[in-house]
């Protein structure tokens, strides 16, 4: 099968698979769950034709563990799931952070808690994505709002994972996953595709956790001349178990620092008419679309409204929000969860005095432009 520039009508979930293939992913391990199953099905059909491996696991715990193993063997790997499955993946996501194993986890969010409304959308995993595991750590999470963003952000997710040796979570939702739109698939080379840094020195001297100046250590592959340890226990630069407090402090800080160092590159946002906006919508995923419609409606009525779309939700776009939020009189945060998980972050940045209006939906229904307009008018 050829990967070339073409225009296609496809579903968000399919576009994620296209993006993964474009980025060079050749290993998928997963477990079926609505509303992400199309990602598994599409991978199962097409992975063998690309010489890759599709592996169906016995549960999500095994799925996450398998992509860690495959990635350490050198293959770009990913899995896809939704709420309950994502919860089961948490322990091994922590292992991927600790072992600095590049991999991509797609979470097509659905309504919860527990089985919840299995076929309905939600954006209620924002905090689980950031803090769902025990221990002190940092991850990257991206959030597509359209089918074409499903493609590009999947490529970006793999690039970040490979560059920064970190699991990247692509937090889609049921609306974006199942929506169909035309997208243009770029030809090979059009989008940058990153590969992990490999060690070049003497194999015997290789230390898998000694970072270069960019904060990231080169990663060898299992089965190569480089024989190395990866441990879920606290470990030293050589990967061997190490309980020394100074070593633990260095490791934990390093896991955070490598993300902090590259914040500017990692945080991707889009703005629509924000230059003179009195009313600023801060949105991510499916709600971006309703926010844009609402902003256009307000402009028609002569009210200056604009939209800031967070394509990266973790790390959080503090600086961008601070600068745009300062100018705006009112900030509106529409999101499909009860407590306003992103609104809380916005409040943290803009302070208690800011006029922040939350628009929340937690009944499985999407937020419409009208719902958003009601919050302002």
């Amino acid at each position, binding site marked *: 099968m050829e990967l070339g520039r073409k225009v296609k009508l496809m579903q968000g979930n399919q576009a994620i698979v296209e993006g993964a293939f474009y980025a060079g992913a050749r290993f998928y391990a997963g*477990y*079926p769950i*609505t509303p992400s199953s199309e990602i598994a*099905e599409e991978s*199962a*059909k097409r992975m063998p*034709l690309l010489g890759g491996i*599709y592996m169906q696991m*016995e549960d999500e715990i095994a799925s996450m563990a398998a992509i860690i193993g495959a990635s350490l063997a050198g293959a770009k790997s990913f899995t896809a799931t939704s709420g309950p499955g994502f919860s089961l993946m948490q322990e091994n996501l922590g292992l991927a952070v600790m072992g600095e194993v590049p991999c991509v986890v797609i979470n097509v969010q659905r309504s919860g808690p527990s089985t919840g409304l299995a076929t309905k959308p939600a954006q209620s995993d924002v905090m689980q994505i950031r803090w769902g595991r025990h221990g002190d750590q940092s991850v990257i999470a991206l959030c597509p709002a359209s089918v074409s963003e499903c493609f590009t952000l999947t490529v970006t997710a793999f690039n970040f994972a490979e560059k920064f040796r970190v699991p990247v979570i692509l937090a889609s939702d049921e609306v974006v996953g199942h929506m169909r739109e035309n997208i243009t698939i770029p030809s090979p080379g059009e989008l940058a595709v990153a590969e992990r840094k490999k060690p070049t020195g003497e194999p015997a001297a290789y230390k898998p956790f000694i970072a270069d100046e960019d904060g990231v250590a080169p990663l060898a592959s299992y089965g190569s001349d480089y024989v190395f340890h990866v441990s879920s226990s606290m470990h030293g630069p050589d990967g061997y178990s190490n309980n020394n407090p100074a070593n633990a402090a260095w490791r934990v800080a390093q896991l955070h620092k490598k993300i902090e160092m590259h914040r500017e590159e990692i945080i991707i946002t889009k703005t629509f008419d924000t230059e003179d906006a009195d009313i600023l919508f801060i949105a991510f995923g499916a709600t971006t679309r309703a926010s844009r419609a609402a902003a256009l409606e307000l402009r028609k009525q002569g009210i200056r409204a604009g939209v800031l779309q967070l394509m990266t939700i973790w790390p959080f776009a503090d600086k961008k929000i601070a600068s745009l939020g300062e100018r705006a009189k009112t900030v509106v945060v529409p999101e499909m969860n009860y407590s306003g998980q992103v609104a809380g972050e916005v409040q943290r940045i803009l302070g208690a005095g800011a006029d922040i209006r939350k628009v929340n939906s937690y009944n499985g229904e999407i937020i419409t432009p009208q719902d958003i307009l009601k919050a302002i008018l």
Partner: protein
Amino acid sequence: MNIVENFDLFAPRLINKKELISAGHRACQGCGEVLAVRLMCKALGENTVIASATGCMEIISSMYPTTAWEVPWIHVAFENAAAVASGVESGLKSLRRKGKIADSDVKVVGMAGDGGTMDIGLQALSGAMERGHDMLFVCFDNEAYMNTGIQRSSGTPMGASTTTAPAGKVSMGQKTWKKNVAEIMVAHNIPYVATACPSYPLDFINKVEKAKKIKGPSYIHCFTVCPTGWRCGSDQTISLGRLAIETGIFPLYEVENGRYKLSAEMPKKLRPIKDYFKSQGRYRHLTEDQVKMIQDGVNREYKKLLNKVKCLEAWT
């Protein structure tokens, strides 16, 4: 020793008339699984608590604002029907011990599909059986994740095409043999293990009745035809179930305290499996060689089973 002494007296007119899973649920036309659940409930009666894993049976029976269940029923996460059932059983036991509730006979039942039993739920099931709870676990096996769109499970048989084990240029569909969970349960040394199929309703009801009377863990593996996922006519549910037994691809047997016994429904001579494959879309792509390879596998497994029946007869 037979657990039910008088089961020769069993006749259709003695079947519980009360429906404990009511009509009006949302199962597909010709669903073999909900038929099996109905028969199971008839055999269990009202003094039953059911813990059900995520799956078709949960979706079709409990969609808000209705429920088809006439017994206490809890839908749990996907992986832990057996663990929740363990908790219910132990909770009741503890309250009985303290004299807080009447010392009545309540059977706790865990149920799940093939995915919820054989894949994600196997650990919880093994734990519950090993701890020896007074509970019955029934696996309703329709050989794939039908609820989410026909993805393969470890219960999917060799050669069947599913959405995540699709048959095509490079693949014959499922390339692994079906996991034999009944045998895994036998290996837990529990008092009663049986296989069943709603195409033989009296046999199935008998087996559930036996399991109900046992004080301790028991397991029934129930083979249920799924017209939607198997790509067959919805009027074939009963006949395909029969063919699965007549061809030996899913033999009916019981293991009581380690002793194997073939069920009376098993024919003396098995039919070729191609009779069973013929009307199912999921097997349509198979070549003659592939069918032969699967036939050899079925023969081999059946022979193993017959040997177990024979040698353990001598042992007891």
